[in-house]
């Protein structure tokens, strides 16, 4: 989770230090599996047999089940949000301790610790198939202050993530804009000079 800074917060110093920072390549916890796809489809009542029925999918031009496009990020990551870390590291390589987005969002200093995701953009280049092993790297491309109803000094963070398969083929890119804000009681306390 974000590192909320107590006291003075210098957005220009944070921008100077963090914009352009890039994570090392990190591998997804597990290969692409059927059951996360089933859970994902169940959530939105998606009955697409290309995602759910191996017999059907085998007869298609894809030759087997593929992942719904937006699950590429899940399969390239830790498996849960917020990242759990902990003793189970799946297929993660030695020295890789946390998913890319976690290492950026978890370390960049912010004013508040509460999160709201705002904007997302995906581009897809190749199908993600059962058994694929995805990896990704993330760069922080912008961080700025912009007022929201809950916090006049909300801090917004923009990241760009590139997701690859085990053949080092780029399968997807994701641009994400997340805002961090303070709780109303913290904002009120600052307004009162406490």
């Amino acid at each position: 989770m974000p590192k909320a800074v107590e006291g003075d917060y210098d957005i220009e110093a944070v921008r100077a230090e963090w914009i352009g920072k890039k994570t090392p390549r990190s591998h997804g916890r597990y290969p692409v599996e059927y059951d996360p796809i089933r859970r994902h489809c169940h959530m939105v009542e998606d009955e697409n047999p290309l995602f759910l029925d191996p017999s059907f999918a085998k007869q298609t031009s894809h030759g087997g089940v593929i992942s719904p496009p937006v699950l590429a990020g899940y399969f390239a990551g830790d498996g849960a949000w917020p990242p759990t870390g902990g003793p189970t590291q799946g297929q993660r390589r030695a020295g890789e301790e946390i998913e890319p987005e976690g290492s950026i969002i978890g370390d960049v200093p912010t004013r508040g610790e509460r999160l709201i995701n705002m904007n997302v953009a995906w581009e897809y280049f190749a199908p993600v198939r059962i058994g694929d092993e995805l990896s990704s790297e993330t760069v922080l491309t912008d961080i700025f202050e912009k007022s929201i109803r809950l916090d006049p000094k909300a801090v917004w963070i923009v990241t760009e993530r590139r997701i690859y398969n085990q053949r080092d083929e780029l399968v997807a890119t994701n641009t994400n804009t997340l805002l961090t804000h303070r709780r109303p009681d913290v904002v009120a306390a600052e307004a009162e000079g406490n």
Partner: protein
Amino acid sequence: MTTQTNQRTWEDVNEGDEIDGFVLELTDTKMVEQVSGSQDFYPVHHDTGFAREAGHDEIFYNTGFTQAALSRLLTDWVGTDGWVKKMSFQMRKMNIPNDQVHAKGVVTGKSEGDGGMGEVTLDIWLENDRVGITTPAEATVLLPHRD
């Protein structure tokens, strides 16, 4: 085994075509499915006390659910041989418990594309009866040509 459905082709599509999509009821069960399906355990999406402490009136549905619904709208529409090339969206308003969320879209343009597939652009969105459009979105998809 599921049977093959009719494949939409680029020639079938015209600018202005509407996609009526589908409706999702945000019941208590759907809220749990949201967490299961997205594996997003951030409490603002399932813990009312946590959400209210942060200044929200209610918990709200997460990015994983939102993008899964928009993605389903597209993958249902492009069919097995189509391809979702780009999708972007803005979560401007919230979908909250007891909302009825409708995923819809409209074709905004088409071009020859490349790689043997035709390109189609769409405006898509999620809306609910309480506040209207919550999630405006744009997409570019590829459709096969008619033989």
